[in-house]
């Protein structure tokens, strides 16, 4: 479809936010506990017509959306290892060889599958997961590679592509009181809505040991209710006078977003962020780290209605003292990853949740003079488990001693998989067509993914 540039012959019409209005977010009501900003208090003390109207609209929309939710809920948990984890120290060790380093391999319940000794707990659950060991990309710079692997496209100055979480949330009209796309400890690369819209950006939170940012009102319930009442019954009313018809619905979404934010502030579902509600033994099993707590919170958030949660673990950029840094990373990753898979199974979420674990690229087979490994996008690993993924499978392989200066670096990679292929496979596992074509805001057709599905690792 091309946008009609000739409308009215002389003045092109900007494509504004009509689409986003059609997908306006709505939120069901809930009970508020006494420690939070209470909707009851708001109504009792404020009682403005505008607030009542917006709540009744929310109720009506909730009923509408209930009938629209025809898709079975599929979830994604992305364990994002930022900095470039070494495939040799994680999922693709080559011990004893020229480039194997100090890392040894250990067996797993899957015959012939060995992974790094630095991941002993993960090794025990490998019969529930699959590995791609032959990922390749053309991006060796962190920023560009992160964009590439999170969106499935190489950076393009003309548009921003959505991340997997944004695509998944865009597919569903059902809403939760808490955000559906969440990034825990987001560092510099939270999932983005891109051309699908900023409302699909990941909601960013830090270590679940700390409260969710900006979620608590700074004043009493009564006072906050009075502020909201003054805002909508006086100041917003004046702003709307004589301006664009249906200003809030057609343009600003100010009141709708405020209503949604207020609901979130008072939602019981906020408890999902609070991992202290889980037993001490369960918390311990994930590890007493921000990443471990993030993984535990991810399960709780999916139970509460979120669809995609990414949890970031940094510190993998081991240009110096590679073994030390990778060991430290694995020490945090190992209990969290293994416990996550187990908990998803225990809570009956494993079949509906796709777990993806990896980073933006791997590390060079050779060890540099500083005992580090540098960036290596020519053959690295990604773990996939859960929804739509086969069990205990391995796709692709890297050579134990590749020629580092080979003109074609992929000649030592068996069954190379591109980042586009990885995305196509993920979308297939989630039951989404990778061929679907989006129209960007300027009418440019973009496929959801241009890759080829790796059917061998699908269930």
């Amino acid at each position: 479809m091309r946008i009609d540039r000739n409308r009215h012959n002389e003045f092109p019409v900007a494509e504004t936010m009509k689409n986003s209005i059609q997908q306006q977010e709505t939120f069901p009501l809930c009970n508020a506990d006494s420690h939070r900003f209470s909707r009851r208090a708001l109504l009792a003390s404020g009682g403005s017509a505008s607030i009542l109207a917006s709540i009744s609209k929310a109720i009506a929309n909730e009923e509408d959306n209930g009938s629209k939710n025809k898709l079975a809920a599929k979830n994604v948990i992305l364990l994002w290892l930022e900095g470039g984890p070494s495939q040799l120290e994680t999922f693709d060790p080559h011990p004893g060889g020229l480039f194997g380093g100090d890392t040894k391999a250990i067996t797993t319940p899957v015959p012939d599958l060995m992974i790094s000794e630095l991941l002993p707990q993960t090794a025990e659950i490998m019969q529930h997961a699959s590995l791609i060991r032959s990922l390749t990309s053309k991006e060796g710079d962190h920023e560009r590679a992160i964009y590439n692997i999170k969106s499935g496209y190489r950076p393009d100055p003309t548009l921003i592509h959505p991340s997997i979480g944004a695509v998944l949330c865009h597919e569903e009209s059902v809403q939760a009181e808490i955000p559906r796309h969440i990034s825990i400890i987001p560092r510099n690369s939270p999932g983005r809505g891109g051309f699908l819209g900023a409302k699909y950006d990941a909601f960013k939170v830090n270590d679940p040991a700390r409260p969710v940012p900006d979620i608590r009102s700074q004043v009493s319930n009564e006072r906050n209710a009075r502020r909201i009442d003054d805002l909508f019954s006086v100041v917003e009313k004046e702003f709307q006078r004589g301006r664009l018809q249906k200003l809030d619905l057609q343009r600003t979404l100010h009141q709708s977003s405020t209503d949604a934010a207020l609901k979130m502030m008072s939602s019981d579902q906020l408890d999902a962020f609070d991992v202290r509600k889980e037993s001490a033994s369960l918390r311990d099993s994930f590890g007493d780290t921000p990443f471990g707590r993030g993984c535990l919170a991810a399960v709780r958030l999916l139970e509460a209605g979120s669809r995609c949660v990414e949890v970031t673990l940094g510190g993998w950029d081991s240009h110096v003292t590679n073994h030390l840094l990778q060991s430290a990373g694995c020490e945090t990753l190992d209990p969290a990853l293994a416990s996550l898979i187990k908990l998803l199974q225990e809570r009956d979420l494993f079949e509906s949740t796709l777990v993806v674990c990896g980073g933006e690229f791997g590390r060079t087979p050779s060890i540099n003079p500083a005992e580090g490994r540098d960036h290596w996008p020519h053959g690295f690993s990604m773990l996939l488990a859960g929804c739509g993924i086969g069990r205990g499978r391995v796709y692709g392989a890297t050579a134990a001693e590749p020629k580092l200066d080979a003109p074609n670096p992929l000649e030592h990679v068996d069954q190379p998989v591109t980042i586009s292929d990885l995305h196509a496979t993920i979308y297939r596992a989630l039951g989404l067509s990778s061929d679907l074509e989006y129209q960007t805001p300027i009418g440019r057709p973009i496929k959801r993914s241009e890759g080829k599905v790796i059917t061998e690792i699908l269930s």
Partner: protein
Amino acid sequence: MSGVSIIFKNVRHLSMKTMRWLWLLGLVVVAFRYLSPSMSDQQARPITTWVESVRDVASIRRENHLPHRTVTDRSNQNPDQFRESVNHSIASINAIHQTHLKNIGLQSAEEGNWLTICRRLSLALVGQGLSLEEIRSLQNAPEIERVDIHLQNLFKDPRYHNYWAERWTRYLVGTDGGQFIVYRRRRFRIWLSEVIAENRPYDEIVRKLLTAEGLWTDRPEVNFYTATFDSNNGEADPIRLASRTARVFLGLRIDCLQCHDDFLGNVNLGDRDQIREGKQQDFHQLAAFFSAAKTNGLQGLKKGFSNYKYQYLDAKEEVTVEPKVPFAEHLMPDLKDPRERLAAWITHEENHQAAVAAVSHVWALIFGKPFGEAVDDLPLDRSSQPILDELAKDFVAHQFDLRRLITVITGLKAFRCDSRADFPITEEHEDQYAVFPLMQLRPEQVAGAIIQASRIKKTDRDSSLLLQFISFTSTNEFVERFGDRGEDELEPENVTISQRLLMMNGKMVRESIESNPILNTTAHLAMFSKDDSQLIESAYLCTLNRFPSENEHQHFLKRLQTGKNRNQDVVDLMWVLTNSSELTWNH
């Protein structure tokens, strides 16, 4: 006994309690001296007129230690002739616009009031609203002159060239960090700030960028090239530079031609009377110009020969690609250096497409939205866009004078008309600029509006170091949480839940509205307003840059007069105004 000893001896006899009171009194006096000039109508101060500001270019140059210009110096223009020429341009473009609106049967809104237009100017030129100090100063001038006076004041304000430099930097090199050591984004931005302050002609800036040579540290324009080093093994990346050049300087999105010919009818190139479909060759021939930029160790970027090779889709082998432009080839001068040839072609006075691309970007920065579908998507086969076309011709005819272009655009009825009307407003009214289009402010503008609203005086480089530090750190944190749109900052967006949470409960708003007697408007209004009416009026002027309506005034007057805690009520008033959509939208 020395005087100092006598004072010391007497001071020792003062009790600690007395000392504390004296200290507090001193603080109050300092605070009063700081605030009192802004709280009421000020004594008339010298007002810079349009004529004076045109003469002032030379003094700006001196202040910024910039070399004297050797090109056409507009400071030598007769100010009356300059004003007449600008008015003539505005009138002719307004006539085209009004005729168009009449033809499609749309009624146009009346002109907005002076405060509304001044707010739009401030947001466009310095990225924040007006301070109460600025408003009070403008109130001393005749109403009919206030908008023009404010525009000229902004042109002289360092905030203007700093703010536009950051916007241009995003547009020219993006927001990525680039390759360590060889790419200095900050240096590039400062250089742009200097050339904008000096009002160097646009064509000269473009030529400097495209033909840049030397080290990225002492020739900041070289960073236009080094920004791409990270994707091409430490060399300028012709692919990225071609894409960037097409979008920024030509208003063409030809990126898909990098991989294949256009088969969707989206990219049409060639001369206007012989439009043809875009070919893969068009992209790579443009990229070939940039292969002439060679990296030479410590000497930085040097001139060289083009040696671009590429294997086209379905071709069996790589071929050498000669530099060639995708349209209007007859304008290409006979120069040896490929980059100089390209720069001369882009800035050729008959290259209308390039001039339209420049005007399109200035328009988008002023209105907060592109004129058409996208700021950098102006296909060669688009239907006529008389306003952009006329502005582009006017821009070229007046030596690519950016400040003049801004003056003309902000003088148009499209910019000065109201965003409200006594007839029903539809999206079409906004699309056709029959009313001023409502646009959400960009994150840094929202941060700027909040910070400015919390101060009586203008926040700029003359503010105290503490204020500048607070402003810098809190802005960065706020923009990061609000959602920096990077290079896409001119694409329309609407409000998200995260943004509302940040505004309602976030640290920056909380610290900006709390009753802090040293820093914040809230406490100053509560302490120094002569009555509640003046307090409410000042709160509205500080935050929304307008007077309250009668209904609003009465409502908040009742709140203040019946409330039990006045300070708390003032904080709440500021919270409400700061959280209004009016603060975060341009209108």
